[in-house]
């Protein structure tokens, strides 16, 4: 089985799905001749040609709006927004149109567009190349929101997104595009949208995370495990629909929970996980649920390492939760 980076797995998934179904087309800025600014679409233009790998004008609302029209017509467009920070011009098309098409038409017009977008810190991108806007989309009924953290999941989840009947916001943690490697099967397979993944089992504390934060949490857990604690790490993988069962079962087992995410802390996705736990299994809790997020500031350039949850900061939070009496 070949070993791939996250980036290579995404590229492999796109190629595999495009070979499988000629309705699948890619569109976005610099995705064609240039192969994408991160090279996720490398080689696809030469294999599939300009009608299926479309270099678009510099207009995010155009990229999503046109994809919606294509999906209405019966194609399966995969739109790339070059950085999640640039998704806001397309917010209207995503929130008002894409997410609502099926509902507002009483089911007459499904709109299966996949929106791929690299997100998060890790490349010293400052305010406008680092944001984590996932909560805007999990707050929008009609969208599925998926974030892989391993090459295997990236390929399989993207395949599910492309084959599915609903619009998907597929967010790629660009910090680990090249740093994470793993086994990826050749050919077709899918990983279902929905179920979370237990990264490691434990009994004293559950840490919920996704994307580039999985690796950060694993590092922090290794440290605290040296002190005799047993930590469960759960990679949510799909933020909507959320695997509530896995989350609640784990908290019932461990009695302590924290959520780690890169976005500003307030109203970030961690709030939803904390509320879910409080609503359903508060009697099982032995400590308050802890959120470790970015700060409620715009994303900084020089002090990025301070802003993004760092293994040390996560480790300290783990200590607090574990030692709470």
């Amino acid at each position, binding site marked *: 089985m070949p070993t791939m980076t996250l980036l290579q797995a995404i590229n492999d998934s796109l190629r595999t799905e495009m070979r499988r179904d000629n309705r699948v087309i890619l569109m976005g800025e610099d995705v064609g001749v240039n192969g994408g600014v991160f090279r996720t679409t490398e080689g696809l233009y030469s294999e599939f040609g300009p009608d299926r790998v479309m270099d678009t004008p510099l207009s995010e609302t*155009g990229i999503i*709006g046109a994809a919606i*029209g294509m999906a209405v017509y019966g194609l399966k467009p995969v739109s790339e927004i070059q950085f999640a920070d640039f998704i806001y011009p397309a917010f209207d098309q995503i929130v008002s149109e894409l997410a609502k098409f099926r509902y507002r038409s009483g089911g007459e017009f499904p709109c299966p567009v996949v929106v791929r977008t690299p997100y998060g810190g890790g490349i010293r991108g400052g305010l406008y190349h680092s944001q984590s806007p996932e909560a805007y989309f999990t707050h929008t009924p009609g969208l599925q929101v998926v974030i892989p953290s391993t090459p295997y999941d990236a390929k399989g989840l993207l395949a599910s997104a492309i084959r599915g009947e609903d619009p998907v916001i597929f967010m790629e943690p660009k910090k680990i595009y090249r740093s994470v490697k793993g086994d990826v099967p050749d050919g077709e397979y899918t990983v279902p949208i929905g179920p979370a993944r237990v990264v490691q089992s434990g009994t004293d504390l559950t840490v919920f995370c996704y994307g580039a934060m999985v690796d950060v949490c694993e590092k922090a857990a290794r440290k605290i495990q040296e002190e005799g604690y047993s930590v469960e790490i759960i990679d949510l993988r799909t933020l909507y629909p959320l695997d509530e069962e896995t989350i609640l079962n784990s908290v019932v087992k461990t009695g302590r929970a924290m959520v780690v995410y890169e976005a500003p802390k307030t109203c970030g996705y961690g709030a939803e996980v904390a509320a879910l736990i409080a609503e359903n299994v508060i009697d099982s809790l032995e400590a308050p649920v802890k959120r470790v997020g970015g700060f409620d500031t715009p994303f900084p350039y020089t002090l990025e390492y301070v802003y993004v949850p760092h293994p040390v900061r996560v480790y300290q939070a783990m200590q607090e939760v574990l030692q709470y009496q």
Partner: protein
Amino acid sequence: MSEPLLQVMQDDAKKVTLPPGLSEADLKTMYEGMVAIRVYDERSLKLQRSGRIGFCVTSFGEEATQVGTVAALQDIDWIFPSYRQYGVPMYRGVQLEDMASHLYGNKFDLAKGRQMPAHYTFKDKRFVSISSVIGTQIIQAVGCAMAARIKGDNCIAATYFGDGATSSNDFHSGLNFAAVYRAPVLFFLVNNQYAISLPVKKQSGNELLYKRAEGYGVPGIRVDGNDVIAVYQATKEAAERARNGEGPTLLELFTYRAGSHSSSDDPSRYRSQDEMDSWKKKDPIERMKRYMQKLGIWSEAYETEIWESFRERINQFTTAAEEQPEPSWESLFEDVYAQMPASLERQKDQLIARESGLELSNEGEFPL
């Protein structure tokens, strides 16, 4: 105005001949299409004023922009409309009971009571579900046309929007994408002079909106939007070029919103009676009637017959729709996704389980 305005009907012409490519029967079909819209509007406004439906949109004065365009398109062509073009699916023979059910938002409404009236969806007529957000459909129509071209199909796409939408983001993205990809799409810019209360001169620094097209590398044409034959001929020509791979066209249909923006709007607050009266003389139905009179294909008996038969049919369907129950509470949760997520299923079950104990009143109106 000395600017070019494509016109066929010269009101002072004493004698006219049948326009090329159109038969007497074609003219009558178009005329009847316009009358049907007028009757439907009169009826829906009456239902709204008497409190039987919550809201309505009318298209008084804009009938020719709908009928002239759809008559020149093929039934395989896709329509991405705004909320003021329901005359288009009517012309394609949509079921009147489906339209009436939508006015009431009852359980037979194809949009399942989820949208305000005038947000129709008719997939079998290739009439795409409508948004209230201005201009978003423009770029979607372009994407649809690009898809048709990629697949090598013979259909084209058409999108309708108002003068206000020329200020929207997706007017720009739509015109630009269409030009870059030479998409087979028609842009029907229905210039009815007002975006709710804002006149065109405050909407744009250049009131000649069709001239915007040139900047994108798209042909633009200005057509008398109250002249159904001119609209037909301009559309026919532009559609043919799109179908032949010669790219998009912007057609500014110069008309007047003779009614209010919606049933919640009072135009006397922002425009004069004199102005409204002056446009009344250019009413598209009256003009077509005079044209047909000159051709000798119009009679009082014909006039009475079509108005009465439309009134009877439309009244019958709206009355029947009023009797129908509202959609089920369960339906609130359907069609958000292809399969209902477990968490949504739980929300639904909790609501339904409490139903007997919940006293939810159905009061209130939409303010605009």
